[in-house]
């Protein structure tokens, strides 16, 4: 099995430089793969996929009943990032989350950043994730964004950019942990020699953070993971995290508010819950405050939260910063709250509400990506280079009618990584979602994160519902040169 004939195709490749040479951090792996007998890698790939099925690593597909469970495709060639390249990314993520958290707290209190004229007021009032019900809330430790999954991409030079901040209930971390288990089985030796930074303690770090941010005076908090239930597409992840964290998995119908605390109904009676890691969206948390028809949360939850008897992770209301127009202002927030220059760049973003930006966007529709500000999941967007003149004309009309709701960005030449296709390797586009746990004074960043890969040839869409898969992501601290000289 070798990489002969593998083409980087003019893109930044995660494992090979543009001369076709393996990058230093990937040399051990490439050597190991090339020394495998023909067909062996494919057998390992298939064995790993079977292992995923039997471990029940599946996601539910909405709208069908029997046989609704599928595994997410997994590619056996890991993506490798040099530790020295990773460190500034990690620092940049910590900086970013710290600023965003301060911004959310500010928005729900005095709104100094608006009074100081750094960002316009319409910005948050028009953000779909802004919840007036959260005004003056004081979550324990001042932390709103306990866990964030920030999507990063690399351009043709290999520079990391932030594509978006998922601040509500980011999913996918279970794949990081499970892909790693499979890869340790497949390449134990390379893994050991490469000095891969560990991800296995993520659930422990998570639990520690939740303990630290428990309501005041609670030393050993009772922690629960709140799931919408078995029909949710990420139910497997919820059960997995609960088991790994040693927290109990609860549904809305298990919870009851006793006038002060949120409690679980147990066979021994009501049991007070101090911290809820919720995988239920804001609007479903408390039918008394948000959607009245919700059965996924519990009446009184917001009261317990407001009065300091409950920690909710993430706090409701964080969606105010999870908006593509607000995103454009994150560098300004970093400067404003921290007095620092941003370490991680945004993708250059034009706000169509600004006259010049709108004109530029309209003139360059065939080159740009235009996204609605408040939608997620890739809905209602235009990818210029892939669109027809007719589509662009139609989109221009929509854009002119409601410019406030749109941003535009240059179409990025996303980096690629080799994937196993039949008996050879081909380059496919990837992105990266690291998970950041924020506990106020400090943050933990999962080394690497979830690499999503667009398995369809030439596709830029990494979403699992559209043919996306995952890869294990290795942040390595030892290059083979170091290894050899120290032997």
């Amino acid at each position, binding site marked *: 099995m070798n990489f002969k004939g593998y083409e980087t195709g003019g893109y930044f490749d995660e494992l090979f430089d543009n001369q076709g040479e393996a990058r230093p951090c990937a040399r051990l792996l490439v050597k190991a793969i090339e020394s495998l007998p023909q067909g062996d890698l494919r057998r390992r790939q298939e064995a790993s996929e079977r292992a995923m099925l039997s471990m*029940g690593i599946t996601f539910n597909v909405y709208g069908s009943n029997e046989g609704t469970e599928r595994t997410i495709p997994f590619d056996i060639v890991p993506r490798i990032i040099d530790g020295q390249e990773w460190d500034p990314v990690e620092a940049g993520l910590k900086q970013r989350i710290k600023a965003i958290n301060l911004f959310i707290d500010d928005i729900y209190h005095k709104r100094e950043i608006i009074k100081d004229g750094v960002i316009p007021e319409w910005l948050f009032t028009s953000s779909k994730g802004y919840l007036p019900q959260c005004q003056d809330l004081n979550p324990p430790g001042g932390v709103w964004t306990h866990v964030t999954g920030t999507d990063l991409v690399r351009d043709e030079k290999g520079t990391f950019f932030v594509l978006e901040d998922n601040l509500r209930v980011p999913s996918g971390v279970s794949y990081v942990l499970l892909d790693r288990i499979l890869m340790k089985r497949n390449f134990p030796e390379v893994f050991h020699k490469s000095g891969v930074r560990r991800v296995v303690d993520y659930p422990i770090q998570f639990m520690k953070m939740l303990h630290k941010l428990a309501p005041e005076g609670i030393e050993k908090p009772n922690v629960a993971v709140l799931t919408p239930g078995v029909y949710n597409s990420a*139910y*497997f992840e919820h059960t997995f995290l609960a088991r790994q964290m040693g927290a109990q998995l609860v549904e809305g119908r298990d919870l*009851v508010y*006793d*006038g*002060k605390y949120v409690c679980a*109904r*147990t066979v021994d009676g*009501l049991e007070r819950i101090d911290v809820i890691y919720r995988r239920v969206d804001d609007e479903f948390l408390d039918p008394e405050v948000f959607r009245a028809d919700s059965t996924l949360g519990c009446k009184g939850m917001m009261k317990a939260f407001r009065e300091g008897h409950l920690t909710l992770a993430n706090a409701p209301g964080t969606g105010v910063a999870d908006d593509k127009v607000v995103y454009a202002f994150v560098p300004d927030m970093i400067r404003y709250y921290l007095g620092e220059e941003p370490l991680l760049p945004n993708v250059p973003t034009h706000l169509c509400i600004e006259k010049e930006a709108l004109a530029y966007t309209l003139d360059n529709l065939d080159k740009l990506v235009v996204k609605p500000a408040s939608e997620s999941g890739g809905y209602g967007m235009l990818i210029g280079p892939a669109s027809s003149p007719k589509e662009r004309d139609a989109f221009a009309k929509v854009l002119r009618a409601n410019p406030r709701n749109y941003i535009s960005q240059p179409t990025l030449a996303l980096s690629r990584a080799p994937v196993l296709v039949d008996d050879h390797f081909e380059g496919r586009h990837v992105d990266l979602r690291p998970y950041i746990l924020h506990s106020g004074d400090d943050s933990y960043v999962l080394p690497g994160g979830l690499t999503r890969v667009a398995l369809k040839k030439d596709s830029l869409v990494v979403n699992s519902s559209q043919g996306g898969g995952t890869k294990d992501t290795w942040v390595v601290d030892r290059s083979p040169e170091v290894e050899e000289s120290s032997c």
Partner: protein
Amino acid sequence: MLSRVADQIMWMSRYIERAANTARYLEVSYHLNLDLQQGSQEQWRPLVEITGDMEIFTKRYGEPTAENVMHFLMFDTKYINSIQSCLSAARENAKGLRESMPAELFEAINGLGKLVPEASRKKEFYHSQILELCGKVKRECMMISGMFSEIIERGRGYHFWRLGEFIERADKTSRLLHVKYFYIHPQITDLGTSIDDMQWLALLLSLDAREAYHRTHGLIDRDNVIHMIVLNPTFPRSILFCLQSALQSLSLITKGVQGEPHNELSALCEQLESLSGADIVETGLNEFIENLQLEMNNINSRIFTYFNPDPSLLNGA
């Protein structure tokens, strides 16, 4: 343990036991009907009577025939107590318990969904496949119950499973006996005849109790069969055995603390312990069973209330 989780474990177990029991009756009745031939139509009705859902059946199918009873009990996805529906329901409950169950056990229960294959749902296959299907359902359900015994630690989860299983079995055994009453009652002339013997024998067969019965009592005798099925404290499908086992698991769950369900269950056991087969016949089989089912329903709701704290009783809520 969350009340919902306890409830889900009990129902998962009940649905599996229910499917297995229905498979037992269906299997034995099919055999019986092959031997009875004439007037066989009458012999399908009791099978529906067992379920207590005669009304639903009549509305949907009219008169019971071999085909429509088989469809109703085995395949009907619109009928919540059909074997197919019970197996799906057990599976749904298992999904909600996935994080606390060994993978092997989950896979076995998850596999129940495929036990009644799509292909067997065609009417022309009913007669050729029904016996094999019943056998498969019965074996698979026993296998899962066996797995519970073999790999689950004797904690609360285990005992909620047993509680569900024994309560369901006690109920189904009592219904089975009740059906014999439906046979006897309209055909008083059959009493003491070979048809009567065959019906009692079928009853024993569907509980896998023929050999144990003959060993203990010899020839078929009404009072002795009733004793075997209701009062025998050593036979694992008798009502008394089931209730005693349920009481045992209940006490282990609450670590010896006695509540209302314990008291009522133990009173019912004591009452049965003091009876003989002849006593039951003297009271009237029908009346005895109706009282028994009332008691068991009552115990059921006491168990539910006991393990599901009622939030409306809270101060300030």
